[in-house]
C-alpha cells in the first residue's frame, strides 16, 4: 500500500510541465499557440457539443486535480457542468479567485447585458452574451491574457510564452486585415440564427440579425414563433445553423423564405475544416461567402 502511495506521489511530481485545463477547444487553441510544447493541455468540451450542455464526466475531475491553471469562458456558460467538477477536483490552485483560475470573459466587452433578468426570459446570462469568441478582434487581448497568466505561473518560461504570443499576434493581425476586408463584403446581409450564438460576429461585421429560431434563449422553436418569424422576415439570405441543434426547423424556414441554410462552425472542431482558430474563421468566411 505504501509503495502504491509513493508511486502515485511520484506520478504527480514526475511531469514538470505546466498543466492547463481549458473548458472549450478554442481556448485550448490559444493555450497551444502561446504555450506550445511547454504546457500540457486538457480540453473538457468537444467542438461538436452544445457549449451549454457539456456532460460533467468524472474523468474530467481526474484531469483537473493536478492542473496548475483552469481557463474558462465565463459569463455563466459553464454553470451547468463546471461547479461540481471544480468542487470535486480537490485542487486549491484552480479555485475561483486563485491565480490558477482564469476567466476570459473579464477581458472582453460583453454585449447584450440584460437590464433585468428572470428565467421567464429563458436561459439569459446575467453577464451578457457569452459567445464572444466569434469576434476575431476579441482574440488578441485573450491570447495576451493567457500569456500573462502563464508568465505569472511559470516565470522561467515567460520569455518563451511572450515570444510565442508575439508570433501568434503577428500572424493573427495579418489575417484580421484579410478577414476585415472580406467580411466587410457581407455587411448588411440579413440572417436568422437558431440561438444568439453568432451575435459577436454579426455585430462586428454589420450583418443584420432578423430573428432567432428559438423563441427565447434555450427554448426550442414553436410553430407559432416560427410562423411569426416567417411573416415578418424579408430578404433573409442565410439561416445560420450550429452543428448541435436539430436542422429541420432551419430547413423549413429556409424553404419558406427562399433563404439558404448555412451550417456555421462556432468553435474549433465543430466541423472538420475548423482545425484551429485560423481555419475556424476562414471556414466561417468561406461558408458565408458562397
Amino acid at each position, binding site marked *: 500500500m505504501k509503495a502504491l502511495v509513493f508511486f502515485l506521489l511520484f506520478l504527480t511530481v514526475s511531469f514538470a510541465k505546466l498543466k492547463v485545463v481549458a473548458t472549450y477547444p478554442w481556448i485550448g487553441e490559444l493555450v497551444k499557440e502561446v504555450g506550445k510544447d511547454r504546457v500540457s493541455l486538457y480540453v473538457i468540451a468537444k467542438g461538436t457539443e452544445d457549449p451549454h450542455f457539456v456532460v460533467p464526466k468524472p474523468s474530467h475531475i481526474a484531469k483537473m486535480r493536478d492542473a496548475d491553471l483552469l481557463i*474558462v469562458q465565463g459569463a455563466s456558460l459553464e454553470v451547468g457542468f463546471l461547479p461540481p467538477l471544480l468542487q470535486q477536483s480537490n485542487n486549491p490552485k484552480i479555485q475561483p479567485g486563485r491565480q490558477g483560475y482564469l476567466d476570459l470573459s473579464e477581458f472582453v466587452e460583453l454585449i447584450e447585458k440584460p437590464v433585468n433578468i428572470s428565467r421567464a426570459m429563458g436561459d439569459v446570462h446575467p453577464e451578457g452574451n457569452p459567445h464572444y469568441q466569434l469576434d476575431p478582434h476579441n482574440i488578441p487581448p485573450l491570447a495576451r491574457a493567457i500569456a500573462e497568466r502563464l508568465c505569472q505561473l511559470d516565470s522561467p518560461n515567460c520569455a518563451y510564452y511572450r515570444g510565442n504570443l508575439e508570433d501568434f499576434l503577428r500572424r493573427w493581425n495579418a489575417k484580421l486585415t484579410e478577414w476585415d476586408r472580406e467580411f466587410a463584403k457581407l455587411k448588411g446581409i440579413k440572417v436568422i440564427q437558431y440561438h444568439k450564438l453568432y451575435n459577436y460576429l454579426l455585430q462586428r461585421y454589420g450583418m443584420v440579425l432578423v430573428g432567432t429560431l428559438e423563441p427565447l434563449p434555450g427554448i426550442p422553436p414553436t410553430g407559432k414563433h416560427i410562423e411569426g418569424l416567417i411573416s415578418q422576415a424579408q430578404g433573409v439570405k442565410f439561416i445560420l445553423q450550429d452543428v448541435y441543434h436539430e436542422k429541420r426547423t432551419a430547413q423549413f424556414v429556409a424553404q419558406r423564405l427562399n433563404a439558404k441554410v448555412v451550417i456555421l462552425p462556432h468553435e474549433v472542431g465543430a466541423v472538420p475544416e475548423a482545425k484551429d482558430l485560423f481555419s475556424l474563421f476562414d471556414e466561417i468566411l468561406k461558408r458565408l461567402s458562397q
Partner: protein
Amino acid sequence: MLLLSIFSFTFAQESLEELKRQLEEQRRQIRELEKKIEALEKQKSEAKEEVKKEQESAPADRSLQLRSKYDERLKALQITPTGQRSFLNLSLIVDTSFVARNKNDQEFKHLEIPGLYHRHEGNGHGHGTLNEKRGFNLNYAELYLYAPVDPYFDLYATIPFSEDGAEVEEAYAVTRGLPFGFQFKVGKFRSSFGRLNAQHPHAWDFANQPLAYKVFLGDDGLKEKGVQLNWLAPTPFYLLFGVEVLQGENEHSFGTEGFRLVDNINTPTTSITIGDTKKPNLYLGFVKTSFDVGNLSFLTGLSFATGYSRINHLEGDNPHAFAGKTKLYGFDLTAKYMIDSYRYISLQGEYLYRDQNGTKYEYDSAGDLETAGLKKKQGGFYTQLVFKFDRRWRAGVQYNLINKNDVKKNGVKEDLPSNLPAYYAMLEYSPTEFSRIRFQVGQNRAFFHDGSRKTVNEFILQFNFAIGAHGAHPF
C-alpha cells in the same frame, strides 16, 4: 459592489476604513473600465501597451501591497465558479405529485416487507415517504443554499419543508484548499455510500428510491452528522478514496440510543437496560473510479459501512427491539453512452448487502420478555436503463429485486420470502432544466400483510420545479 458596501456597513468599527477601501476599489475599477473602453477604441497596438501598463503597475509600497492582497481575498469571496456573482446562491425546489394506487392509504401504511421493512410510528418528517397518499401529495419544498464561507470553506445546506415542518437534511462545510488532493467535509450530510445515496431525491431518475435503499437505509437514506475525508488519487483516470466517521443514527440499520426492557409487559417487576452504543457509531469507507471508452463512460464504486445497532420499536402494537452490530456492503456500476449533446443511454445498478448480528427482544403472548439471537444476511439490487432520446424527453425502466433474505433466530432459519421484486417505468418531459413532469407506473411485489403477498400497483404523476441559482446537471 453595492452589496459589498452594504455588507461592510455592518462591521461597525471597521466600516469607515472598509468603506474608504471599497470606494477606492470602486474608483479603481471605474478607472480600469474607462481604461478598457479607451483601449478598445484605440488601435490594437496601443491597447496592448495599456494592458501591459496595468499589469506592470504592481504595488510599490507596503500598504498598497497589503491592500492588493486584501482585494485578492475579497475576490475569492466574491467569485463563485463561472461568473455567478453573489454572496449566496439560493434555490427552492418544489416536488408535488398525483398518485393512484390499488391499496388505500391505511392498507398501504400497514404493509411490510418481512424481515426487512415495516412502518413505525414517528416516521414522516423531512422527505419521509415520497408519494405517500392517494391523490395529491406535496412531497417537499426544499430550500438549498450554497456559498463560499471564505477562501477556505464552502458551506451547503438543504432544508426540505414539508407541510408539518422543516428539517435540516444537510448542513455541511467542505474545504476548498487542502493540498495533495484531499478534501474534508464536516456537518450533517448525505453519505457518499453507494451511487444514489448522496443524490437528492429531485436528482433521482424515478419518483421513489430503489427497494434496496428503502429496506436497508430507510425512506430518508443514510444522512448523518459526522466527517468525511476523501482523497482524489493523482492517476490519469478518476480514482477517489474516502472514509467517513458518522454518528450512526440511521433508524433502519444502525441507531445509537439504548432502551429499557421489562420482564413482563403487563406486570413489570424488573427491568433490563440496553446501553447506548459508543458515539460516534458508524464507520464507512468507499472507493470510486471512472474511465471513458470513447463516448462511453463508466463509473463504479465499492462501499462498506460498519456500526452498532439499537433499533427501538417498543412503542406500538407489537413491541420489539434489536441490539447488535451491522455491516453494510455496496457495489455500484454506471455505464453512460453519450449520443450527442442532448441524448444518452444510461445503465445503472447497485447491489446492497447487509450482515446483521445481535439480540432481538420481544414479548410473547403472555407478555413475557423473550430474547433471541438474531442473524440477518440480506441482499438486493436495482438495475435501471434510462434513455434520454430527445432534448426534453427521457424514458426509463427500473427492476428491483431483494434476492437474499436469510434470518436466523437462535440458529433456526425463519421462513421468509426471498424473492421480492418491484418494477417501474417512467416517461419524463422537461421543458427546461428547471421544470420536469414525470409519469411513472410501477408494480411492487415485495409487500406483505399477515403473511400473504400484497401486490401494489401505482401510477404517479410527478411535478418538480426549481427556482433560484442554477443547479448543475448530475453525471
